[in-house]
């Protein structure tokens, strides 16, 4: 143990915070052999008494409990929070209603179930377009939205352009 370590342990010892018996014993041996650390121990023990004297349990006596004031503050905070929640309800309801209305407007009218459904290959034959396909008419809702020309099913459709979707 060196003097630096000893000083730290002495500081713990004076406040009864050096609980390890082995550490206490090695500190005792060091202090008995080191006059400087022995002096430090004596001085620190004196100073620590000052701290203990300042540690008065009667430092503060609660004049009266703060709970009545606190419970009032808690109630006020809760009341402030409640109306703000209510204020959101009309806005939230209005927004929900708007979403429903927009959804209804954007929903296309029901198609004739027996109408023949054509794929993109057939459309291009009936209405040949040049340039970007995206500029052409919007695909029908019942049309496959993905270009499956590279898939086996797509190739099959290309070879049989007049064949409608199975099951229709």
């Amino acid at each position, binding site marked *: 143990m060196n003097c630096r370590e000893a000083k*730290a342990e002495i*500081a713990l010892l004076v406040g009864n*915070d050096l609980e390890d018996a082995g550490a206490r014993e090695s500190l005792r041996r060091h202090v008995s052999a080191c006059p400087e650390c022995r002096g430090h121990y004596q001085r*620190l023990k004196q100073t620590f008494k*000052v701290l203990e004297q300042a540690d008065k349990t009667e430092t503060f006596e609660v004049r009266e409990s703060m709970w009545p004031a606190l419970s009032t503050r808690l109630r006020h905070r809760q009341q402030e929070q409640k109306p703000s929640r209510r204020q959101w309800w009309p806005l939230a309801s209005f927004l929900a209603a708007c979403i429903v209305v927009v959804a209804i407007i954007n929903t296309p009218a029901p198609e004739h179930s027996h109408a023949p459904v054509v794929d993109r290959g057939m459309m291009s034959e009936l209405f040949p377009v040049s340039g970007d396909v995206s500029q052409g008419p919007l695909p029908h809702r019942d049309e496959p939205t993905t270009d499956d020309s590279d898939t086996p099913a797509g190739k099959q459709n290309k070879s049989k352009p007049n064949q409608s979707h199975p099951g229709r």
Partner: protein
Amino acid sequence: MKTRITDSVDGMAVDSASQPSDARLVDETRRGDQAAFGQLVQRYERRLMRVVLRFISDLDLAEDLAQETFLRAYERLDQFDPSRRFGPWLFRIGVNLTLDFHRKRKRRIWSIFFTDRAPEGNFDPQAADPRPELDLQQEVQQVIAQIPEKYRTVLVLRDLENFSTSEIAAILDRKETTIRWRLAEARNRFQELWEKREVIHRRADHEQ
């Protein structure tokens, strides 16, 4: 050597078997029973005020900080881990709140020092020496105030408020070995500053 008071952070809860435990009161508060929280307030308010007053000497400010501590604890009760103890958790909120306030106030004091405005209460050489009016406790407070905050906090909680080092570790969210090292450093620094102060006092008395 004076026998240390070994009351724990939630010592008051343990004292009386008839009183409900902290855990039960926390649970009841979470279910909406405000009166249960009232019992927790009454259980901890004295000690919390004492701790806050170690850092903030103004009684009204200390009471405001203590009230704010309880309000925050109430609002964050859903974040509290019920497998842990309520006391250290509450004191962690209180100590952090107090130290934050203390730091802000210190910054404001610095800004006053660096303005052209003369500080209030100029030093008057004709005025009587105020030192005799300071009692031991105030002198100790003045010396403790010179210790850097990270050591000072540990010293106050351990040597003035008698929290155990493991409780301080929980309050400050540090390892206990760190707390013990800081405690040793804080005591050594206090000793150096106290001796320095005594030398100054002796010199002043000699000159008179």
